[in-house]
């Protein structure tokens, strides 16, 4: 076992292939059993959420008065039971998962775009511009954004597009800081100097030479942002400020389940389980990726 790995590494070395940052990281990640199992579980949850509701014989918003608040059973295919309106909780949990996962991806993408452009511009331009831009980030950093988001949701109604943008817009600060730090070190490298000497324009240098080299840091940070964002959305939904009925999300389901938990605990347990498992897996993958991509930084 051990010998064969040595051989394989030697072979790859000899052929000169697969020794880049990414293949090294991939190998380290594959050896991290916790991260790999987390990835598999997350993939299963995602596939279930995407395809499950299509395959199920029941609709997520169909009221079935013959099956009100029934516990999980195979009869009538209510695998997770039904809620007090007779809606099937298995399908609702999966449909809610779609919303939660989608918020995770879209809002993270929003924060990614803002954070990378902001951080790369500040870091690359440097000097006065950098100082002002980072001072703005410092000021925003101390803001209790969660309260502003709640305020926003209360005032402008429960609008799913607004959730995406609002959550994304508050999560870019860390990304901007990290990207800026990385940009500062990248811009002193020879290939950037070469580009400058060749007369490449500044926007083009940032786009073609800086941003692609940020990926290592960004990937780690993205995997850690996704669970944060999912958490924020479910927090809002729990307060009744997220998606609107009959649509649902994990936070809203936890809220409904918590209200009825004395008599029908299944409503709480399944949605809470899915939410916690997803967050858990995302965090584990993020940790594993950080160890794989940057073996030095194992703190926190």
């Amino acid at each position, binding site marked *: 076992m051990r010998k064969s790995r040595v051989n394989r590494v030697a072979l790859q070395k000899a052929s000169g292939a697969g020794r880049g940052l990414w293949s090294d990281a991939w190998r380290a990640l594959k050896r991290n059993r916790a991260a790999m199992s987390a990835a598999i579980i997350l993939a299963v949850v995602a596939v279930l959420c995407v395809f499950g509701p299509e395959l199920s014989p029941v609709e997520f918003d169909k009221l079935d008065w013959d099956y009100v608040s029934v516990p999980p059973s195979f009869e009538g295919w209510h695998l997770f039971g039904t809620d007090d309106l007779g809606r099937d909780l298995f399908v609702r949990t999966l449909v809610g998962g779609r919303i939660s996962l989608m918020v995770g991806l879209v809002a993270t993408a929003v924060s990614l775009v803002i954070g990378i452009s902001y951080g790369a511009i500040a870091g690359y331009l440097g000097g006065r511009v950098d100082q002002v831009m980072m001072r703005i980030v*410092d*000021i*925003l950093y*101390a*803001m*209790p954004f*969660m*309260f*502003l988001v*709640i*305020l*926003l949701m*209360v*005032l*402008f*109604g429960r609008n799913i597009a607004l959730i995406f943008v609002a959550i994304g817009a508050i999560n870019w600060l860390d990304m901007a800081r990290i990207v800026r730090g990385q940009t500062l070190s990248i811009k002193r490298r020879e290939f950037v100097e070469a580009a400058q000497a060749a007369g490449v324009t500044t926007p083009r240098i940032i786009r073609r030479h800086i941003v692609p080299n940020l990926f290592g840091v960004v990937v780690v940070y993205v995997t850690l942002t996704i*669970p944060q964002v999912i*958490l924020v959305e*479910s*927090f809002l939904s*729990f*307060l*009744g*400020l997220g998606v609107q009925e009959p649509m649902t999300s994990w*936070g809203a389901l*936890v*809220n409904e*389940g*918590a209200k009825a*938990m*004395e008599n029908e*605990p299944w409503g*709480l347990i399944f949605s*809470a389980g899915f*939410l*916690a498992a997803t*967050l*858990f897996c995302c*965090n*584990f993958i993020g*940790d594993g990726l950080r160890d794989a991509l940057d073996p030095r930084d*194992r*703190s*926190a």
Partner: protein
Amino acid sequence: MFRYALRRVFAAIPTLLILIALAFFMIRAAPGGPFDTEKTLHPEIEAKIRAAYHLDEPLIQQLGRYLSGLAQGDFGPSFQYTDRTVTELIREGFPVSLQLGACAMLLALLIGVSAGGWAALRQNRASDHAVMAASMTGISIPNFVIGPLLILVFAVHLDWLPAGGWPSESLFERLPNMVMPVVALALPQIAYIARLTRGSMIEVLRSNFIRMARAQGLAQSTILLRHALKPGLLPVLSYLGPATAAVITGSVVIEQIFGVPGLGRHFVQGALNRDYTLVMGVVVFYGILIILFNFLVDICYGFLDPRVRQRS
């Protein structure tokens, strides 16, 4: 040190002003007013009410009025509870929230630091892995899930603790009611602090001055308490700012779940009832609190780590 503190104050003031202005304009821009009722009011009466609350003045003037009131500790009248001022509501609710929040923070620090430090000393052993796995679980389970689960287990099934409520007579009577909300608030913070402590302690324990202390033959306990603890806890100190913010945010749902009459519940109720001044008051009040706490943390950090106050 004084100049460092002054610089921090100047950094905190714009944050505060931006926060107030943002909240203020957001509320004014919202569709629907606080006096929208089923039956339309007589225009004359509505104009009177608007004038009484100064809603007929230009926005800038309203903002100025709000700020000058704020400087005197006046958060304005509540739109919903017409006979109460927001200041009164805050004065009533905040002590309750403070008890929960302070207990949760203390618990988080105590358990988080000891668990993290212990894990660092036993790095890569089974106990270290156990602590880290537990803290990962703690981070991944949001406190609005922990709360109901605690109730389900300890109130509904085991019937050890009351499911909620807040007897106001004496602290002693309140203790059983406080256990679950405090634990639910503290758990995610315990997990974060344990991970932070472990990471920084491992780094500190590897550093040269610790090796030097070992070479001098100092006792393990002296090395840990006299030399390693202070630098090892610096990251935890700087996390206290975000932790306060997280505990305050968490208290909003926790108070809702456990039926605690604190400020967080006012916030949610006010938001659902469109009580603009109350919501705004809570946002501003908590904003000031968080910014103030961040400022204090910065000052402490400057005290403990001379490098910070000399830089920049």
